[in-house]
């Protein structure tokens, strides 16, 4: 008997391991859409006895209802317009405008998730929608033809003309990316919580070694002309970026992909002729291949947890670009540039260079046809933007704190303020000059009164940020040295470092005066400019002579980032994504001329922590690592962080469902609608 069981087990074992381990496409069960737009629930829909239940908040909010929860009586009240729906937990009778209506089942509280679940069919129909169920895909769709109001034109302003490259792997300026971004979707996009969620990819997963990332593409996503988007197109797009003839700005961060350098150096992956001519094909590479029409795999040499954020660029139509050399993409000789065969919510209708771009809704959009019919982007000088909003010609715009009074005076305008991904700092030169001494840097930190600057120059429209990790990332901690304003501590540190106060109030050491050059950009940010003399005064108080120098952007690029010819420099920085990995800003590789780490700072400890943070996918572990790294950075202080900027946006009250945030203002573009 024992032998039999052993043989049976052995056979089973052999059989089990003999089955090739293909990645199993995760099943998406019961996807719910409202007017074609996917509804995301924070707990899974449940099916009991053939009836679907969903968490009530997400579905009611999607349908535009205002919700009240009476916990004493366990009653949900949802109101939209003239209709009020009341659902009591445990009862299968609901009321609509006071009249009792039977639901096919009672609402209940799910023990596991703690969420209150309501029957989907009833809720979908309660406000006048039609609910249909597709047994083949288990998809449930709710359609309400009366709400919200369809149609209208969204009018937007851009303060400079776009440079004109609308291809997602080529564009390099904000407005080209704003317009291009409406025409091209990516594998994933941000949701309201600044977290990546599925877009063209239905889901993705890392394998257990954290070196293989598989994307499962949504079936049914098409380009504007109806051709399906397939895995080949994804492969094509990233090969284009890695192609030796590619001249755009996206080609960094891919070094870990298996076979990347062979391809990027023109050794293998295309024919010699194609490499020379700049032609990209859809053939697979060892580190990037289409497993089938809807599955794309990236293979890395070593674990890289934030790698997902490198893959933001949408699949380009490989057919349209098959014969165009990659260094001509996005230029005047690219017929797909301004009028691409894209995947986004809108398509280009009219483009007048230097003036405006008009886009129209894409009826085939995978996330549901946009409610709005048309978007017009116009070039509007920043100085007159206020006037255009006042007149109602522009539906929303960003503005700076000093304009807030003008916007608050407008009745038809709503003001949104949110903590944004931009922060302002003062970088130190940690390699040459007096600031190469850590004690000098720390002393300067103590001498700057952050609170006064935030209060007086930003009118409190900024959030505190004490270390290099941004408050909007999940690795932020406040538990680090704040360098709270203390000129006394500053003086002590400088004295201890050998800088003694000289006869004219300025410190000296070995006959050399403590005179520092503070560079600031003299374009783009009047508040930052105004901060320079303030800091100069604060440092004079502790005996440092500061010379102020204003440069325009290309000069800063040359003198600061290439020549490292400065002592201190004001710089703003914008997070590229929500991952706290500091590669690109604070690592050693970025200290080269032209890299962003103009401070020249790096340490063994910092490098090893950064490396560790990328190698594990475990969030808890990564939080620990980044806390350690932040504490180390704060002690070394290669820069002084002023604050994280709050973004102020004014929107016309006719624009509904507008929820700007660090994820962008148009993250839910297809669900914006105009009430008039």
């Amino acid at each position, binding site marked *: 008997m024992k032998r039999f069981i052993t043989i049976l087990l052995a056979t089973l074992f052999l059989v089990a391991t003999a089955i090739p381990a293909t990645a199993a496409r995760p099943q998406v069960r019961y996807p719910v859409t409202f007017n074609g737009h996917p509804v995301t629930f924070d707990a899974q829909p449940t099916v009991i006895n053939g009836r679907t239940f969903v968490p009530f908040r997400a579905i009611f909010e999607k349908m535009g209802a205002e919700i009240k929860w009476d916990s004493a009586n366990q009653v949900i009240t949802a109101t939209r317009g003239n209709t009020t729906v009341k659902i009591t937990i445990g009862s299968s009778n609901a009321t609509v405008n006071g009249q009792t209506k039977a639901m096919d089942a009672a609402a209940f509280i799910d023990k596991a998730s703690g969420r209150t679940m309501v029957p989907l069919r009833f809720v979908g129909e309660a406000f006048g929608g039609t609910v249909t169920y597709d047994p083949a895909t288990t998809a449930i769709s709710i359609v309400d033809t009366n709400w919200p109001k369809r149609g209208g034109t969204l009018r937007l302003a851009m303060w400079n003309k776009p*440079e004109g490259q609308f291809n997602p792997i080529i564009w390099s300026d904000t407005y080209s990316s704003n317009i291009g971004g409406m025409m091209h979707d990516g594998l994933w996009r941000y949701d309201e919580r600044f977290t990546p969620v599925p877009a063209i990819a239905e889901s993705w997963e890392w394998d257990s070694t954290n070196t293989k990332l598989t994307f499962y593409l949504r079936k049914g996503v098409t380009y504007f002309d109806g051709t399906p988007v397939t895995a080949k197109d994804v492969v094509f797009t990233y090969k284009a970026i890695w192609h030796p003839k590619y001249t755009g700005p996206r080609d960094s961060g891919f070094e870990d992909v298996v076979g990347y350098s062979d391809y990027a150096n023109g050794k293998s992956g295309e024919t010699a002729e194609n490499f020379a001519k700049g032609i990209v094909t859809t053939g697979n590479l060892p580190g990037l291949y289409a497993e089938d029409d809807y599955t794309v795999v990236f293979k890395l040499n070593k674990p890289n947890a934030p790698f997902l954020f490198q893959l933001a660029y949408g699949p380009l139509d490989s057919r349209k670009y098959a014969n165009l050399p990659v260094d001509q993409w996005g230029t*005047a000789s690219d017929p797909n540039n301004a009028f691409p065969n894209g995947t986004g919510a809108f398509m280009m209708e009219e483009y007048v260079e230097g003036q405006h771009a008009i886009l129209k809704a894409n009826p085939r959009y995978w996330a549901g046809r946009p409610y709005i019919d048309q978007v017009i982007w116009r070039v509007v*000088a920043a100085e007159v933007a206020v006037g255009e909003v006042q007149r109602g010609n522009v539906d929303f715009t960003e503005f700076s704190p000093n304009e807030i009074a003008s916007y608050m005076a407008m009745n038809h305008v709503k003001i949104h303020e949110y903590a944004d991904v931009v922060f302002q700092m003062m970088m130190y030169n940690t390699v040459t000059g007096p600031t190469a001494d850590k004690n000098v840097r720390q002393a300067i930190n103590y001498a700057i009164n952050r609170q006064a600057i935030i209060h007086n120059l930003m009118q409190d429209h900024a959030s505190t940020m004490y270390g290099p990790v941004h408050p909007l990332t999940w690795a932020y901690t406040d538990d680090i040295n704040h360098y709270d304003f203390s000129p006394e501590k500053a003086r002590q540190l400088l004295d201890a470092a050998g800088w003694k106060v000289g006869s004219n109030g300025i410190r000296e050491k070995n006959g050399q005066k403590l005179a520092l050059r503070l560079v600031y950009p003299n374009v783009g940010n009047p508040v930052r400019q105004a901060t320079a003399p303030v800091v100069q005064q604060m440092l004079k108080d502790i005996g440092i002579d500061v010379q102020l120098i204003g440069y325009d952007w290309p000069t*800063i690029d040359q003198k600061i980032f290439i020549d490292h010819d400065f002592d201190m420099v004001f710089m703003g920085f914008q997070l590229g994504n929500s991952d706290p990995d500091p590669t690109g800003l604070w690592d050693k590789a970025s200290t080269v001329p032209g890299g962003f780490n103009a401070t020249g700072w790096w340490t063994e400890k910092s490098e090893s922590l950064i490396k560790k943070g990328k190698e594990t996918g475990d969030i808890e572990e990564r939080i620990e690592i980044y806390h350690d790294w932040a504490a180390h950075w704060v002690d070394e202080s290669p820069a002084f962080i002023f604050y994280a900027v709050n973004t102020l946006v004014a929107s016309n009250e006719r624009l509904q469902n507008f929820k700007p945030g660090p994820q962008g203002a148009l993250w839910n573009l297809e669900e914006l609608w105009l009430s008039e």
Partner: protein
Amino acid sequence: MGQYVLRRLLQTIPILLGVSVILFIIVHSTPGNPYAYLLGPRTDPKMRQELMDRMGLNDPLPVQYVRWLKTTLSGNLGYSIRSQRPVTEMMAQAIPNTLILTGSAFLFGLLLAIPIGVVSATRQYSAGDYAVTTFAFMGISLPAFFSALIMVYFFAVKWPIFPMNGITTPGQPFSMWDLLYHLILPTITLGLRDMAAYTRFTRASMLEVLRQDYVRTARAKGLAERVVIYKHALRNGLIPVITLLGFSLPGLFGGAIITETIFSWPGMGLLSFTAVGNRDYSVLMATNMFFAFLVIMGNLLADILYALVDPRIRYS
């Protein structure tokens, strides 16, 4: 006269050559490079060096200059580094826009300035004269962006009569009325400044003419004052004003940067200004050489007009 013009035209060539050398040195010596926009944590710093090598921007200056000279003389003005568009195309789009704006402003300014200047001259020291002079000083001293914003505030926001930017309304098919409608505010903004200058100019010139003997003779002959002023004096008084046309030539094409920025009018001013910010060498060289050429031609035109209009002037 013909010989004179020919001589002047031939002189243009060495002048332009010299200007191009100086321009080239200045443009390429400013700190920064056209690839500053590639700076960022997600861009490989090596990429910039590669691009600059590929574009020949790391070669020694004389080599680059000769290369530029050869391409330009063959008619190819190059490509904008930032937007990859041919410079000729960008200028071909910008110049008509600028001409429409500056041309209208020039006409507007001149048509108003001449009568006002004449009236002010004939009634020198009167209240009207002082009013005109003060107004002219104000017009010249107010900064362009200030007057532009005032115009926008009053006529586009407070009383929303006119559109505040753009050449045409997006989405609508092109129509002359639409263009004129958008043209009015920027023309008045620019034209008022021009008018202020021309008024002073006309007034000074008329004052000088009115002191001439032949004017006294005309009055003595019993001619009506109107005939004296508008038929006899004005013609001579206008001589310097006509030559204004020649000197204004570069300005006409150069565009008015501030007005173009505020009113989002995509003309030569905006083009060259943005090129400076982008360190877009090809565009900078092309537009500035164009302006240099216009200045030279403008001066020549002024001299020719002088000779044509004033019989006392003869060239040999």
